[in-house]
Every structure is written in structure tokens, then in C-alpha cells.
């Protein structure tokens, strides 16, 4: 069953300095019931705006949004349901816990609006606080609690009415790294228990990987890829997705006589299978540092430019026909700086040469 559906959603902001800015450009997606779905992308890519469109804080410029079998925004029919009628739970980056009321009242707020009776409210609040490990802190005020506890209040508040869909807008980015990791598991556990759909916005790819079943990678308001986490990691749709998910090396190459050479360097060739569509063209090869090996014999011959020992692995920099790449390999292969070695690519992905997006263009889009 579909839980959240976006159909051809576009959102344009009118700004004074840049005129109309398209923050979300023709996005369509289906999120299934009980799924944990992430929006991933750099800041200003449109992910938060997309989430706010689902929440109803922004009205869309084009398209439709459905929650389950109910429409909440349909531009053509000028239909728009305000956020308070959408029956969603939401957690914000800055906690947004109300500082003037105590923990109990913060969590009870949505129930009071439903005009529930006192005993039911107390029961539900206690349950939500227990689930978020806040039992015993009912009478405390938010400023007496830590950041992690404050975010738990926000979480308790968002699940107390047991909504079908939970929207999370970078909920962990204001927490310290250790706490962030443990909160990830807590969110996951809560989801298993209540089986709600999670729409999760983040710019942190590890977080997105750890939490989600599927994700949407966005940039400049456009959908770059919608896929499962494994596919996004192993089969990135384009250079942007490749570089955004994990560490990346790119080598610009040209192909002549069925051989692959680093661009402007017709010395040694890189041994690899040439993808059919790239015969006799320029291309960009992409590879992750941990999918490259250093060997003493064979491979692309070069020497070690730098070496950093990092415990679990060693981080090498080597030169491939004038282009520096990074290699992470286990500590056994003990090459030193200056040593001659061979570079062996275990896996290479092929991408067409694209025009780079200028910083200026990026800034323009970021305005919102």
C-alpha cells in the first residue's frame, strides 16, 4: 500500500534578488506503508522543501500529494489541506520543544487538541515517554534537559497520537556523533513497534544508509536517483550520486584503439573492460578508494605520493597519468612513499563527461 505519493511536484519560490527559483523540480515518488524512506542531498538541494510540502507548510506550485488514499494537495483542483489536518508526526532539527511548558505538557499537546479525557492523556503520554526512555522526567522543563533528551521529547510528541506517517527533518544533526548513532537505532526500534512510515531528511549519507530501506538522492531540486540503499551505493545513477555516497575517485579518460588512457597522457593504459556505449569517446571512470588494490607486479605502474597510517587501513595517494587518486587498503601491503607499485582497479563505473555546475549556480539555488 502506498503511504505517501508525490506526483509531478514542483515548488517555485519568488525571491527579490534572483527572481523565481525552482526549489523542487518535477518530483514524483511513492513511499510504501511501513517503509523508511530518506531524502538525501547537500544543503539547499530541495529535500527539506519537499518534506515541508508533504507536511503542508508550503503549498506546491504544480502537482499532487497524497497521504494514503487521501489527497492533501492537488494544484489543479486548488485543493490544499493545512498541516494541522494532515495527521502527521514531525520532528525538527532544532528540537522545537516548547520551552515554556514541561515535558508532560509538551507531549500531551497533540492529545489536548483532540480533547481527550485526562486519564487517557496521562496513559498515552506515559506510554510515549516510556518508549522514548524519558520516564520520570515528566515535570522537568526542556531547558533542564540535554539535547538528546530534548530530541526525545520531540520524538515522543510526534508519536503520541500514533500517526501513520512520521516526518523527520535532520533530527539528529544537532546531536553529538555517539548519541546520533544510538538514536538511529531507537528510531528504527520505534518504527518496528508501531509500524509507521518514516520520511527522513538528511545530508549525512551514513545516517541515510543505516536507517532507510530506500532513498531519494536530490540535487539542485532534481531527483538524481530513487532506489534501495544497496543499489544507490553500488549502482549510482550518475557522478553526483557516486560522489555523494561515500568516498570517490574520478579519472577522466579517453579511449583510443580499444585502450583506456588517462586524459592527455598516452603512456600507460588502464586495464579494464570498456562499456559498449563509450567506444572511442571520452569518459569518467569512478572508483571507491577501498575498491582499488596496490600490487607489486602488474597493474597501472606508478609510485606512492603519500601514505597515512590510520589503524584499520592505510590511506595512499598515487598518480594516475597526472590525476591523483586515493586508495584505502589494509595494512599488510606495506608500501613506502616513493615506492614503485601497480594500481589494480577491482571495480570501475563508467560515466559520461558532464559539464560542471558552477558554484554560483549552486548558490543561486540555495537561496531558499
Amino acid at each position, binding site marked *: 500500500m502506498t503511504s505517501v505519493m508525490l506526483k509531478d511536484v514542483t515548488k517555485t519560490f519568488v525571491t527579490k534578488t534572483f527572481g523565481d527559483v525552482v526549489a523542487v523540480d518535477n518530483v514524483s515518488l511513492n513511499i510504501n506503508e511501513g517503509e523508511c524512506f530518506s531524502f538525501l542531498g547537500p544543503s539547499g538541494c530541495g529535500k527539506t522543501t519537499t518534506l515541508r510540502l508533504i*507536511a*503542508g*507548510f508550503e503549498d506546491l506550485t504544480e502537482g499532487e500529494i497524497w497521504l494514503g488514499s487521501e489527497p492533501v494537495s492537488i494544484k489543479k483542483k486548488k485543493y490544499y489541506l*493545512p*498541516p*494541522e*489536518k*494532515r*495527521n*502527521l*508526526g*514531525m520532528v*525538527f*532539527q*532544532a528540537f*522545537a520543544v*516548547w*520551552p*515554556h*511548558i514541561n515535558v508532560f505538557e509538551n507531549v500531551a*499537546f*497533540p492529545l489536548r*487538541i*483532540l480533547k481527550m479525557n485526562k486519564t487517557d492523556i496521562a496513559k498515552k503520554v506515559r506510554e510515549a515517554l516510556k518508549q522514548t526512555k524519558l520516564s520520570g522526567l515528566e515535570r522537568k522543563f*526542556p*531547558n533542564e534537559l540535554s539535547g538528546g533528551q530534548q530530541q526525545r521529547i*520531540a520524538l515522543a*510528541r*510526534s508519536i503520541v*497520537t500514533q500517526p501513520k506517517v512520521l*516526518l523527520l527533518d535532520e533530527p539528529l544533526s544537532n546531536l553529538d556523533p555517539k548519541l546520533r548513532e544510538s538514536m538511529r537505532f531507537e528510531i528504527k526500534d520505534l518504527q518496528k513497534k508501531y509500524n509507521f512510515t518514516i520520511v527522513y531528511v538528511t545530508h549525512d549519507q551514513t545516517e541515510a544508509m543505516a536507517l532507510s530501506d530506500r532513498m531519494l538522492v536530490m540535487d539542485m531540486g532534481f531527483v538524481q536517483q530513487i532506489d534501495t540503499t544497496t543499489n544507490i551505493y553500488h549502482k549510482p545513477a550518475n557522478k553526483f550520486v557516486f560522489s555523494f555516497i561515500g568516498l570517490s575517485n574520478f579519472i577522466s579518460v579517453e579511449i583510443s584503439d580499444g585502450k583506456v588512457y588517462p586524459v592527455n597522457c598516452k603512456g600507460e593504459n588502464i586495464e579494464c573492460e570498456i562499456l559498449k556505449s563509450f567506444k572511442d569517446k571520452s569518459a569518467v571512470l569512478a572508483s571507491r578508494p577501498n575498491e582499488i588494490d596496490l600490487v607489486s607486479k602488474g597493474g597501472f605502474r606508478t609510485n606512492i605520493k603519500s601514505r597515512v597510517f590510520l589503524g584499520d587501513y592505510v590511506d595512499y595517494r598515487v598518480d594516475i597519468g597526472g590525476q591523483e587518486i586515493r586508495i584505502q587498503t589494509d595494512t599488510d601491503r606495506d608500501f613506502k612513499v616513493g615506492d614503485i607499485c601497480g594500481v589494480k582497479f577491482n571495480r570501475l563505473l563508467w560515466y559520461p563527461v558532464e559539464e560542471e555546475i558552477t558554484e554560483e549556480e549552486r548558490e543561486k539555488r540555495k537561496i531558499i
Partner: protein
Amino acid sequence: MFNLVKIIKGSKELKIMGNGKIDTGIMLFALSLLILLITVAMPLLMIVYNTFFYKFSFDWSLFIKMVFNPDNLKAILNTIKIAGIVTVIGTIIGIFFSWLIGRSDIPFKESMKSLFVIPYMFPPFIGAMAWELLLAPRAGYLNKFFMGITGGTAPLFNINSIAGIAFVEICYYFPFVFLQVSSALERMDPTLEESARIAGASQFYVIRKITLPLTIPAIGAGALLILISSLSHFGVPAILGWSVNIFTLPTRIYEVIYKSAGSFEGIRQGSALSVLLVGVVVIAILIQKRVLRSGHFEIIHGKSMRPILIKLRKFKYPFLTVCFLFLAFTVLLPLFIIFAVGSLKAYGLPLLFKNMTLGNFIYVLFHCKLAQDAMKNSMFLSISAAIITMFVGTMVAYVVIKVKAKGKLILEALATLPYSIPGIVLAIGVILVWSGKLVLNLYNTLWIILIAYIARYMTFSMKSASASLEQVHDSLEEASRASGATHWGSLADITIPLIRPGMIAGFILIFLPAMRELTTSLLLYGPFTRTMGVAIYSIHEDGNTVESSALACVAIIIITIGLIVLRIITRERKGK
């Protein structure tokens, strides 16, 4: 001086630093303390001393006599009544407009935001003069117009009353709350309101349960400013109440001294009443703090997002009309009447174009010795007070924020004290210190007024410099010293240039109110040291309405030019 060195040496921060910093730190600290002791502490101590001591022995009979004098009791009651009305209504108006501009989709927001600050810069006593021209019970233009229509003899509104005084003060004091609440609404993290919406709350429920409670600290701060200002305000009750025997404590203090023709007994009685007035202000502050004790919380968050604006729909234009009518009524109408009367050939003539002339302006600008002197004096006083106070205030702020000496709390307290000390009280203190009883006799010179101005505007300058200094991270100066610059060199090359815009803004924020200052100057002026405010006031009290209006116009024009300069400077700063 020995204690002072101990205080500074006790500061951990300084022990770690090199010798150079200790020396500079001590010097700046000592200098700041000295200036503040002379300008702020001494006048206040002299007031207390003269109230409770007579011929070197404790004697509080004067104070008791003054408190239980029926006229004074009535004045206390009036003061509290007026301040109460002004605070309550001013706060409500301020909240209403700040909410309308901060959270609704009313058009022309940016221009309205600046328009609503105009009343804040409008000299209230000139406003009072304007409203008296409009609404004096018999001669006011609006009242005459009203009586002409109804054919009766009952005026529309009698401005020479408690309600009238309160009304004029509201017009010029509501921006205190407006500014505070507007800035709180701007800085408030919008997700606080959004999370209530998503929890199912309607727009108006959110206003009631989230927005309003969260802005309570800002409302409280603004209301307190209104309360203190109104309690110690002199100009409006002096213009509107004096002639009909309605006195507030500040005007009563002036009356006591005025009647005694400057004798020492009069000054002593004035001091006793001053202690009383300060007592009322302190009690008001304490009550206010108690009422608003709950609620000290952060509502600010760095990530700025636009808050959801409430759609006014069919109420959009009615509300817009309310805004413009309010502005027209409180700003344009008084301005118009002051300029119109200032150009009349003679007071009492109908406001017709054929009765207008530029003669009055030419007279006050080029022929009237009193007005010319006053303009010269005010220019000299405002510019020198602004320059001196700007530097001293910056120095105090620097010692408090950057040097972090242990005694900084004393400095901070002394520098912020003048803000809650009524101008008339400060004037009496300055008289007691500088009229020859202690060291120098500066009475009847410009210097005594200058000293009073410096004390009076110290808080403005200190606050303005503090705000800029807090933006300058300690490491910037440290980096300069690490590169080999001396403490003084780093100050001159790094810190001062970085806070220069704040200092210039501070300069203008002192220059503007000093240009139109009335209360302290009125007690301190001598035959040749009238200021603009005093000149306008005394020409007005002499019954020369037309000339005083013309001079008021000149003052308004000077203030407006200053404001425009201020805006240009602050805009440049934003641009960076």
C-alpha cells in the same frame, strides 16, 4: 587605588596574559571606573546624602515631610495612574502591530516596520505641543472643528487631563514593545510554531498557546521600558498638565525647585522627591520582574526559515487601513499641525494658505538671539556629549566584555544605572555636585549640562558598543597579538575598526535625543546656556506658540536628517 589593582590581579584571565595586557587592562579599568564614579555615582550619592543628612547628621524629617505632603501624594498617584495606563495600552498596541507585521500576510511590511519606529524618534514634548494645538479644550483645532459641527460647547476631547497626558505618551512609547516583540518574532525558531501546527493545532490556537507565551519575555522587557520611561517622563505632563494643576512626580520636582527660585532648600526638597521617584521606579521594576519571573528561555535558532504567515483574507485591507490611520493620526497629524502653526502669521488665524509665511522660520533661524544661542548650544552639547560618551561607553564595554576584570560588574551596573534614573533626578544630582559645594562651580555653564548628558546617555553607548564587541571573537585580537602587535596596537588596528559601525550608530543614538533633550537641561540652563529643548519649551510657556512651533520644526528637521544618516550607516553595515 590599591584595592583596584588587587581586583584586577585577582582575575585569572589576566594572570595568564602577558604584562602588557595587565597594564592596559588596569589603565582602562581605572579610567572607566573614575569617569563613571564622577558622572554617575557621585550625583546619586549627593542626592541621598542631602535628603537624609542635614549639617552632617542624619535627619529624615525632610523626607517624611515631603512624602506626606498632600500635593506630593497626589503627584505620586497621578504618576502611577498615567504610567499604568500608558504601559497597559501601549503594550497592547505594540503587540498588535508587531504581530500583524511579523506573522500575517499584510502588505508593505518592510516600509511599515520603519514607519512604526518613527514615533520612537519623535520628541514627546513636541508631540504634546502638537496635540495641545489640536485638542486643547477650547482653542484646539480639532475641538473647534468638532464644536463647529455639533454647535455645542463641549469639546471632543480635553487633552489637558490625565487621559490626555496618557494618550500622548502612548503614541510615542508603544514602539518600545513593538520593537522588542518584533525582534523576538523575527528571531523565534519557526519550527516551534510549526511543530504545534503539525500536532493538530489551528492557527489561532498556536498564537494563544505557543507564540504569545514564548514572546512574554520580550513583551515584559518592552513593557518595563514603557513603565520606566513613563514614570520618569517630564515633557508631556509639563506641557499638558502644568497649566491645569495636574502634576506628576517629575513635574512636581521641577515646580518645587522653580518656586524656590533655585535656593538650596528647594534643591533639598527636590532631592527628597527624587529619592521618592527613584523609589517608585525601583518598586515598579521589582513588581514587573516578579510578575514575569517565569520564563527565561531561548527561542532563537540559527537556521532562519520563513515563518508561516497567517492569511488575513478579507481582513487584509481593513487591517492595513488601521495601520495607516494609526500612523497618520500619531505621526502625520501632529507633524502637520506643528508645521502649519509654525508658518502662521499669527496664532489664532485660521489654517489657510493665505495666512502662511516663512517669516517665523527666518525669525528663529536668523534674528532671534535666544533661538540661535539655543541651536548653537545644542549642537555643541550633542556633538561633544556624543563623541565623549561614545568613547567612554566603548571603553567600558571593552573592559566588561574583553578584559573580563573582576570588578566588571560594578562598571556594568554603574553604566546601566543612568537608564533607570529619571533625567530630572540626574539633573538635581549634578547640581549638588557641581554648584561649588564640593569642588568646582560649573553652574550656569555649558559644562554642567555636558556632564549631565554624558551620564544620561552612557547606557546607550555602552549597550551599542557591547553588542558590536560581542560579535568580535576574542581570537581576532589574540591573533593580532600573536603576530607581534601590542595590546594598544591590536585595539587600534583590529578591534576598533571592526566595531566602528556600532560606535557610529552609538554616536547618532546619543546625538539625536541630546539634540532635543529637555528635562535635565531645564534644571541646568543658565541665562546664556539654553538648549533647543529649553528654548522651545520656554518660548512655548511664554505664549509665543507660533515661534515655538517654528523652532520645533527646525528641531524635527535636524533629527530627521540624523535619522536618515543613521539608516544609511546601518544599511551599509547590513550589506557587509
